[in-house]
């Protein structure tokens, strides 16, 4: 078996590869691939309806529209990996952004400092949630649900009687209105490819050192090649419009950083261990409460960061910031892209992919000016379909293993 894998790509090898791919798809092991197929289907549909859907301008819009929710979703993934839930992320994002706006406009604090204050405030909320969960053993969704009500109240309080607060052009608004010139865009893409390659190679080396089976080098290079091509295509597309948005670099940077944390660090392994089986993790000597506390802090900090990005895009904060269906979408995104609601399984990238799926549907339907009734029905139907597919493939895998 391993001999055959090492032979160069032959007809027989290709056939095997496709069969293997089919099996993986059917059993949900090729999570990202399934989601990418879904994205392809959605994009094809909308492109046929309106040929401006895949235009550089619209794809850039899609990225800007989804940057806040993708950021919040990264935090949600970390929390879901533990088998916990945080229902306060929407409220945290709205509240922290409101505090930031008040600090900038009413207290004349430098915008960068105010944004930092928002992140610190988010971390503090996460610390409180984590403390309640670990110290008093209150289920996380009760703590965070109660917390979110309090935060909505606090948001109304800090916004006071004026309600909406406009943000003038500043560090904060430039987070989502800065676009890099083409050359820098290409440079960032090359850097991203090198980082991906290094990530893959060191991962392979670690497996080899640990005496685990490693795939052939060519398959790794093909993988990195595909991802690299995607990066280059992305930059080629955005360069035709306004250029590579700063916020896309920020969101990808965050995703990369947290992918590293979850997949390569001791802390990340502990997260998976706690999420998979907390009791086993505890007996293995992992300080599970410490892990939980830290993850709640990270989740809320990322929610605050999402709130800052949302405020930056709207150039304003109001009573409904962080409200509406933001929370639902932030949780649904990673889940439809393969992160389990029950802990121990998922990747940070599902946050990005999920945001792309949900964002594409909303973006496309707005482009076609669908009525609200159609929009609600379609969004709901797509969400339930996606989760069903995810669930069915998971059941099949379990069936084959046991």
């Amino acid at each position, binding site marked *: 078996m391993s001999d055959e894998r090492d032979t160069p790509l032959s007809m027989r090898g290709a056939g095997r590869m496709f069969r293997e791919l089919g099996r993986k798809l059917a059993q949900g092991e090729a999570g990202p691939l399934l989601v990418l197929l879904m994205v392809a289907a959605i994009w094809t549909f909308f492109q046929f309806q*309106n040929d*401006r859907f895949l*235009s550089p*301008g*619209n794809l850039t*819009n899609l990225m*800007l*529209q989804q940057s806040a929710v993708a950021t919040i979703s990264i935090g949600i993934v970390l929390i879901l990996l533990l088998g916990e*839930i945080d*229902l306060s992320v*929407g409220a945290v994002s709205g509240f922290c952004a409101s505090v930031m706006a008040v600090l900038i*406009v*009413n207290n004349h604090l430098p915008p960068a400092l105010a944004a930092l204050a928002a992140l610190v405030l988010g971390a503090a909320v996460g610390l409180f949630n984590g403390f309640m969960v670990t110290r008093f053993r209150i289920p996380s*969704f009760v703590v965070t*649900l109660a917390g*979110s*009500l*309090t935060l*909505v*109240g606090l948001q*109304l309080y800090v*916004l*006071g*009687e*004026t*309600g*909406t*607060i*406009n943000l*003038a052009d500043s560090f904060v608004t430039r987070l*989502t209105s800065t676009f890099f010139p083409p050359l820098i865009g290409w440079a960032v893409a090359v850097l991203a490819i090198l980082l991906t390659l290094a990530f893959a190679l060191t991962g392979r080396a670690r497996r080899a050192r640990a005496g685990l089976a490693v795939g052939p080098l060519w398959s790794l290079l093909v993988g990195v090649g595909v991802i690299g091509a995607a990066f280059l295509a992305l930059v080629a597309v955005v360069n035709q419009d*306004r250029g590579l948005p700063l916020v896309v670099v920020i969101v990808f940077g965050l995703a990369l950083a947290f992918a590293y944390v979850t997949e390569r660090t001791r802390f990340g392994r502990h997260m998976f261990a706690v999420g998979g089986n907390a009791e086993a993790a505890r007996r293995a000597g992992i300080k599970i409460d410490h892990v939980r506390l830290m993850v709640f802090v990270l989740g809320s900090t990322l929610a605050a960061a999402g709130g800052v990005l*949302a405020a930056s*895009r*709207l*150039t*304003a904060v*109001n*009573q*409904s*910031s962080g*409200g*509406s*269906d*933001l*929370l*639902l979408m932030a*949780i649904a995104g990673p889940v439809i892209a393969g992160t389990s*609601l*029950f802990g121990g399984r998922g990747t940070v990238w599902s946050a990005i992919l999920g945001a792309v799926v949900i964002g594409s549907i*909303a*973006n496309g339907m*707005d*482009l076609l*000016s669908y*009525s*609200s*009734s159609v*929009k*609600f029905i379609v969004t709901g139907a797509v969400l339930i379909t996606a989760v069903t597919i995810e669930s069915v493939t998971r059941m099949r895998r379990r069936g084959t293993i046991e």
Partner: protein
Amino acid sequence: MHGRRALRWFGATALVVSMLMVLTGCSTPASTGGGATTTGTAGGSTGPLKIALLLPETKTARYETQDRPLFEAKVKELAPDAQILYSNANQDSAQQQSQADAALTNGAQVLVLDPVDSAAAASIVTKAKAKNVPVISYDRLILNADVDYYVSFDNEQVGKLQGQALLDKITKDGNLGKTIVMINGAPTDNNAKLFKAGAHSVLDGKVKIGAEYDTPDWSPDKAQTEMDQAITKLGKTGFVAVYCANDGTAGGAIAAMKGAGIDPKTRPVTGQDAELAGIQRILLGEQYMTIYKAIKQEASTAAELAVGLGKGTGVPSSMTLSKVNNGKIDVPSVLLTPVPVTADTIKSTVVADGFWTTQQILNTPALVAAGKLVGLQ
């Protein structure tokens, strides 16, 4: 074991999330805090005049910061020893039912009711009628019930005023017959339907509507995405103006135009509510107009009417009544006229009324400079 735990989690999460959707997703979002409070001193039914003021929610700034104090001030002016039983239903119609029961039990002689749910509030009216207590439907019309009076702004008129202001500006710019974008309010809000109908009655046939959206929850973020997509659909030069139903959605649409590299000063945008943020955008030239509904006038009118009914002196002679059908009867109504506000009239409207102070409006150097041009300083 795992499966059952999983199922429980899923069910609970779904339940909680749907609760949150209901809580936060309504057209006029709900919130925490509030609850029933009373002002004045307690007294028996033979004591001083008791008026119940039942407001629907606390998330929109107006109810707690404008309606309630203005109403109370006017009542105190007309009847110094009157007692006001105030409660706020936090967007929960069941809670409003209990609050109305409590007010009637406490001996309220007049109910001034701004219903959470226009249809469900009919049962409150029935209970009040059984005790011979008159009901004033405040701001929102209570449907299919024997309501005594209705005090509100003419909401279809709001849409007409927005449409007319936009049409006048489009005509002045020489753009009649060209394409505009329409961003309406929440599809679940009856008032939003009236604004939309009013605007269409003026604009249809005079301009082309290139893209039109209803904005769930009146969410500015959603309005921004809608406008992004309208620009993608029509092109950056494919529209000459934007109808937005309120200032929140206008803010979203203007942010979308800025994001696409369009100078919002070149595309007139409408609004409503005279929000501080909206007034500031108008000063800076980014938004063309807003609609100012003088809540002071609305609250004072309701207060005068309530005191008149409570004392048995009837409707003040200064009020002109029209009829609005609520599905059961023609309700005698005081319909107030909303006022359009552009940069030139900020001083004579919202500032003159004390709705916003000059200090509140001019909080950045750019606004101070813009304010000087229209005599605000």
